[in-house]
């Protein structure tokens, strides 16, 4: 009993912040209601919370004053102090003599770092943290990548310089030099040499993220392994001997599924230094053909080439400076700066208070979001233009929305998350859109009278992640009442409806002759083996029937079939399985029958249409009732 009280008391700060899951919060509140000790403790905690919040508020003038003083001081300092200091250094750094001198210093310090590093590893008692620090001192990483993609053999050599955040690369295809380049990730200045045109181009990269270079060789090993963890791959670790050297061998696999191909990799790491030695990986196609075979060797030499000329670019080559890319780069930089300011404003305006589950942001307050949208659109245009300049069209080609009147939904999880990368409501939210997109109900779970269907609420929406439909409905009810100034209520009523009931024991029997026999194909006509339309969904039987199929059929599905709860299958929903927009009648009935029979053939689950009592939310306007 004591333990329970202690556990509940530990959860109280989270309960007060409203960050406990619904189940945990209910359990904690239930306990507190019955336990006078915990009740008293919670009240005391709340009282302390108020005291500390008040205390923080009394200090706000001092913080505001501090901000003003520092900003004034920064403004007061003329360019000879702060800006001048930086620009002077920039000028010095940019001079050719300094670059040469700096290169020499870097080589010498790299050698010193290696010596220092060697000293560390010979000491038996070296702590793990110190080892990491020593590894972090490594300045260069030489990566040799040999990749076989079937017809082509690619050979790339890359020198990463961690401190200056630059990469030098030499890339050859089937033994012929294709490109020599250097990229500075701080300035995004890209120097590219193409042997065919025999011109060195200086281009500013606006089409790539500036976070591609690992921070250190240490983080590289971590990043590789984390990558497999993220993709829920298997990671096996063994201590082995390779060529007389003690190594950590990581065997990494990502199994095939509907999205990913099979991936197998092997990462060999020096046991003493924790530096990567070899990273091998292979990708297979869904048909089981080897598509990509890569071997990366790592070398931590004490010196590295300095620039593209050291990699074989003739010194006589003409250098061309691309002013257009510089202009785009500067514009993007300015846009990112502006965006950061608008994001701060957005977070201030859109944040949910503790306990708040849903918020409507009226059009008068959505300006920062609209500005961010406009900036994002322009950045996408800039990135696309940048990729065209480099002739490496990797960026987004999606059609741009030009209409600013779109409305957006965000999720709140202590921070703001955009539900979709684009504004999602093409028009102000109607009751139907709110029920389906914001609350998460299916169209057969609510009933709106015709005279209320025209109600529209323009503006953005913020929904708390994990909030229940019931909680969202209650808040939406209040928002609706405030907005329309009408007494509109939502009420749950039991009604008689035709529902589809699934029974039997789930047993997967693959359908032969499809483009993927490992899927369960959902279709209501003769299956075209070449059809690639429709969507896919990987889930358990219960989730698929209740959420996906019910929506596609616009009809409630009750699942009574037996299946292993955690058995996940991929369901291929073909175009013919979308019956939601078909009017009731013999044609729909025939299609539904065929769809369910096709499903039964592959799963042994049997279906029947039955009349049952189900709950439906009614929208009631009390002023009209009267």
């Amino acid at each position: 009993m004591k333990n329970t009280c202690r556990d509940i008391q530990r959860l109280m700060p989270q309960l007060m912040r409203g960050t406990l899951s619904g189940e945990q919060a209910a359990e904690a509140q239930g306990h507190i209601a019955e336990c006078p000790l915990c009740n008293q403790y919670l009240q005391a905690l709340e009282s302390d919370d108020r005291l500390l919040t008040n205390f923080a508020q009394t200090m706000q003038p001092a913080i505001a004053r501090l901000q003003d003083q520092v900003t004034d001081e920064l403004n007061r300092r003329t360019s000879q102090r702060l800006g001048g200091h930086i620009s002077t250094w920039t000028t010095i750094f940019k001079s050719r003599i300094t670059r040469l001198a700096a290169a020499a210093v870097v080589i010498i310090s790299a050698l010193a770092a290696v010596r220092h590093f060697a000293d560390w590893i010979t000491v038996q008692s070296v702590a793990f943290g110190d080892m990491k620090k020593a590894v972090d001192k490594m300045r260069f990483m030489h990566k040799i990548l040999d990749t076989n993609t079937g017809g082509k053999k690619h050979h790339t050599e890359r020198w990463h310089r961690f401190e200056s955040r630059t990469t030098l690369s030499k890339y050859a295809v089937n033994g012929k030099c294709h490109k020599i380049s250097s990229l500075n990730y701080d300035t995004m200045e890209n120097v590219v040499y193409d042997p065919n045109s025999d011109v060195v181009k200086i281009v500013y990269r606006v089409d790539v993220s500036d976070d591609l270079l690992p921070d250190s060789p240490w983080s590289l090993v971590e990043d590789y392994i984390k990558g497999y963890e993220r993709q829920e791959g298997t990671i096996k670790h063994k201590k082995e001997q390779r060529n007389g050297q003690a190594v950590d061998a990581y065997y990494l696999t990502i199994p095939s599924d509907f999205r990913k191909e099979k991936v197998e990799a092997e990462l060999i790491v020096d046991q003493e230094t924790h530096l990567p030695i070899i990273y091998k990986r292979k990708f297979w196609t869904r048909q089981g053909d080897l598509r990509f075979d890569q071997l990366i060797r790592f070398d931590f030499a004490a010196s590295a080439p300095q620039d593209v000329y050291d990699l074989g670019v003739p010194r006589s080559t003409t250098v061309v400076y691309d002013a257009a890319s510089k202009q785009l780069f500067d514009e993007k930089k300015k846009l990112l700066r502006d965006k950061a300011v608008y994001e701060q404003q957005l977070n201030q305006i859109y944040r949910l208070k503790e306990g708040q589950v849903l918020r409507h942001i009226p059009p008068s307050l959505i300006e920062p979001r609209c500005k961010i949208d406009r900036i994002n659109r322009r950045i996408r245009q800039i990135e696309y233009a940048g990729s065209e300049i480099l002739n490496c069209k990797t960026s987004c080609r999606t059609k741009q929305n030009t209409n600013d009147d779109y409305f957006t939904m965000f999720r709140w999880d202590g921070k703001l998350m955009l539900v979709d990368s684009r504004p999602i409501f093409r028009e102000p939210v109607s009751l139907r859109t709110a029920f389906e997109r914001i609350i998460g109900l299916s169209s057969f779970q609510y009933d709106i009278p015709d005279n209320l269907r025209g109600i529209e609420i323009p503006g953005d929406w913020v929904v708390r992640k994990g909030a229940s439909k019931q909680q969202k409905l209650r808040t939406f009810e209040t928002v609706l009442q405030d907005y329309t100034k009408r007494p509109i209520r939502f009420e749950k009523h039991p009604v008689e409806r035709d529902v589809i009931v699934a029974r039997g024991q789930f047993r997967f029997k693959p359908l032969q002759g499809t483009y993927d026999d490992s899927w369960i194909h959902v279709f209501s006509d003769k299956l075209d083996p070449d059809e690639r339309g429709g969507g896919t969904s990987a889930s358990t039987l219960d989730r698929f029937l209740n959420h996906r199929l019910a929506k596609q059929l616009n009809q409630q599905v009750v699942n009574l079939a037996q299946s292993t709860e955690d058995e996940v299958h991929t369901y291929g929903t073909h175009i013919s399985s979308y019956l939601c927009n078909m009017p009731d009648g013999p044609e729909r009935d025939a299609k539904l029958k065929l769809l369910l029979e096709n499903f039964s053939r592959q799963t042994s689950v049997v279906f029947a249409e039955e009349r049952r009592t189900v709950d439906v939310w009614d929208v009631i306007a009390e002023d009209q009732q009267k």
Partner: protein
Amino acid sequence: MNSALEKKLVALCRNGDRPACAELVRAYSARVFAVSLGILGNSHDAEDVAQQALLKALTDVHQLRNGQSFGAWLCKITRNLCIDLVRERRRSTKARLRQAPTEKGTAKGLTELESALARLPDNHRIALLLYYFDGRSTENVADALGISGAAVHTRLSRARRKLRELLEAEGDTQ
């Protein structure tokens, strides 16, 4: 502030971009103030040291290592400046918040609170102040102190428990 945004602002700051510097000041002043108040226990000294720390960090921003969090680095600078000041004045460590003159008209309960805060261990007090001054976010506290989220939760919960005991001992929780 998310790390990508922080990184971008720091990069802009390195190029002498004033709005970016001002944005960093705006984002981190509460945090710096909380750390200095936690160590010095006096809002006037805290304000002076916080100002010095912010200016020092922005002037020396080129010394920030790649991959290092600006927030954590700034807190380290603040801490060092506070320790320098404490050493310089040879102030008794017991003085702290108990002697702190508060801002205008002390609300009921604040004096007891300050007295209780002053008697908390340093790391507990700093964690609590950071939490309440810097957006009530455990992530911000973790970043500022360079400790894990779990450690922040433990530290905050111990600090709250201890604070409760101290306030109860003062006998004025109502």
